[in-house]
């Protein structure tokens, strides 16, 4: 046999090996094939929490951009967006539709703690990823018991730890008063705060008071907290009560160092009704670039964001931070799918989601997305911000792991 033949044979063999190798690498679960990846998502487009529907729409608009630019590893994303109206019973129905009828590869970013609780067990029984859920409860990062569920945004406990760290740095002898909502959300924050203070929690926290979500006001709680003699106040309340607390504290002349949970860090629905002058100096924490903040309305990432918004999401409101959230979380998923390559099994999706170490353009500088086999909390870093009477001004270093 001539050497030319040898070469051809070898080349042919090599090509065959490569082909076999490539074919062996292509692995699919239902919901993925050579052309398409089916992503299911559940958001409230109707009902009491329908403002969050903007997240679902922004995610879809981001996938439109991805598809227009050629898709992910040559596959288009098919986005199936369903409405649960923030009703857990409906969430169950929708999750079952996505898994059993539409056969989506994964269920992406379902929103709210009760809706996610309703499908938690089901998704893990079915071994379908419940990926990057839109809630801050701490229970979503439990890979031992629920390996198919993963959170996204900073959880309540890690945010409370940021506040605790700041207090220990700036005011180690603080006498702290805590007001919290008497449910899992309030208790989650309190636990993180106490863990963050560590051994000093017992001595530093001089007063802890709860309120019920059904209470008309928190006025009497504020008066009691003031009389405890505390000079620092951790305010774990939802928007309506946060506004009441800020206003009442000013009325009774209590001027503690005031930390407000990010749940209520809204200028429009909290600081303005409370009276902006009463809120000057209050601290909160943040991880995402607010589209209304002038300091983030420049640079390439802003130009990209605006271009995307105008082309694909023009029915939305550019001032809505929920659209930024949707844009960012969709980028996170695209990264997971890119990493997964041609191995689009549900197992590999979770494996790739649990090996992220990236930054995303509309997260604050220094805030990253980092996960590991035992770390199912993607975003854990936050930066503190202070209210200047008009807006939240970021300052200092980025806290968290």
């Amino acid at each position, binding site marked *: 046999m001539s050497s030319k033949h040898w070469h051809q044979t070898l080349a042919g063999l090599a090509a065959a090996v490569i082909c076999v190798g490539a074919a062996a690498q292509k692995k699919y679960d239902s919901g993925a094939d050579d052309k398409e990846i089916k992503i299911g998502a559940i958001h409230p*487009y109707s009902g*009491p929490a329908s403002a969050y529907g903007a997240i679902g729409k922004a995610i879809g608009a981001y996938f439109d951009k991805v598809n227009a630019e050629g898709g992910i590893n040559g596959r288009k994303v098919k986005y199936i967006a369903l409405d649960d109206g923030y009703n857990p019973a409906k969430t169950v129905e929708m999750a079952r539709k996505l898994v059993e009828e539409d056969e989506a590869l994964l269920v992406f970013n379902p929103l709210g703690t009760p809706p996610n609780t309703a499908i938690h067990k089901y998704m893990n029984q079915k071994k379908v990823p419940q990926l990057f859920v839109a809630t801050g409860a701490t229970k979503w990062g439990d890979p031992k018991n629920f390996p198919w569920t993963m959170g996204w945004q900073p959880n309540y406990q890690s945010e409370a730890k940021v506040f605790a760290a700041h207090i220990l740095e700036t005011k180690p002898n603080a006498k702290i008063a805590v007001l919290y909502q008497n449910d899992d959300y309030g208790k989650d924050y309190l636990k993180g705060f106490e863990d963050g203070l560590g051994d000093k929690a017992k001595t530093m926290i001089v007063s802890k008071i709860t309120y019920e979500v059904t209470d008309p006001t928190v006025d009497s709680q504020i008066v009691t907290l003031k009389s405890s003699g505390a000079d620092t106040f951790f305010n774990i309340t939802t928007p309506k009560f946060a506004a009441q607390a800020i206003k009442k504290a000013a009325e009774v002349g209590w001027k503690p160092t005031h930390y407000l949970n990010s749940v209520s860090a809204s200028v429009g629905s909290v600081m303005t009704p409370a009276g902006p002058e009463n809120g000057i100096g209050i601290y909160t924490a943040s991880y995402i670039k607010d589209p209304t903040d002038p300091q983030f309305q420049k640079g390439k990432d802003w130009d990209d964001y605006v271009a995307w918004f105008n082309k694909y999401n023009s029915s939305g409101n550019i001032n809505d931070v929920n659209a930024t959230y949707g844009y960012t979380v969709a980028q996170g998923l695209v990264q997971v799918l890119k990493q997964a390559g041609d191995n689009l099994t549900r197992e590999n999706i979770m494996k790739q989601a649990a090996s992220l170490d990236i930054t995303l353009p509309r997260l604050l500088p220094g805030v990253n997305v980092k996960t590991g086999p035992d770390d199912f909390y993607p975003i854990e870093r936050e930066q503190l911000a202070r209210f200047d009477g008009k807006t939240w001004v970021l300052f200092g270093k980025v806290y968290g792991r």
Partner: protein
Amino acid sequence: MSDSARRSRWFWLALALLAAAALLLPFLVKNYRVFQFNLVLVYAVAILGLNILTGYNGQISLGHGAFYAIGAYTAAILMERAGLPYWATWPLAGVVCFIFGFLMGFPALRLGGHYLAVATLALALAVPQLLKHKAIEAYTGGVQGIVLTKPEPPFTFRFLGQPFNADRWLYFVTLTVAVVMFALAWNLLRGRVGRALIAIRDHPIAAAAMGINLPVFKSTAFGVSAAFTGVAGALGASVIAFVSPDSFTVTLSIFLLVGMVVGGLATIPGALFGALFIQFVPNIADELSKSAPAAIYGVLLIALMYLMPTGVMGFVRTLWLRHGPGAARRPSAGVATTGVPAPPALTKET
């Protein structure tokens, strides 16, 4: 052949067809659809309960979601905290809801029409919040609710290539309970009690003059109605396998009312059509538009009520009287469908 014999033959034929369809259905569709039809049966029982009160007795309730919630929570707590088997919780949920409904019936005696509607609306608004109250949080699980385990089938087989799994088992269980509840309602409403309830609705003073004890009948109607809806809630808890306060907002009460009106006031089979409507039409609306699913739903609802002002059963009855057997011999048949509809059997007897 006499008219009534012909009518009864049609009735049994329709019933046999319906039964065959109900038995075959879960093996013809996917698991997820079985789950949806399961919910249809649950809503049908709940709407039937509401219809006993509002359709037959004329007491408007905007708060039946509250009884549904109480039934669901009773079942969930008994299953998860007391370890009772799922089937044992349904009668207990019915009893608990009967008591609550009966008690609610007392203020209802003094409140008529729209005032009663507002009082029951208050109930629907209050119950989800009360369920979160810390005094009972150890039982209710607070805002997080209770995650339940789906009942497993006692045996398995394959039929038409489909496995007999948890969803299909639950479907037949729910179907059995629904049939029992419908039979109970039918027995209750077509006899003396039903006539008394309708008499109270149409003319309370005349009803009292005929010797009907208004307070007893009205509060019992409230209790029975709540018990039906409570059993539905308990079934729903097993089907969804999760209860939480956010599942039972005031929207649920409104949906049950919508289902009743769509199906047809004071009709028993109407509950099934109403249940189909509230289960499937919101999903259709969601598929048509992401921006305003509720508006689409509203438009569909208005269109339906325009086409069938007396509900699906009223429409069916009109068609039957106009085109069914013996239509030619009843020239004035259309008259029966004006005003508040009632089944032909009832109009004849009263």
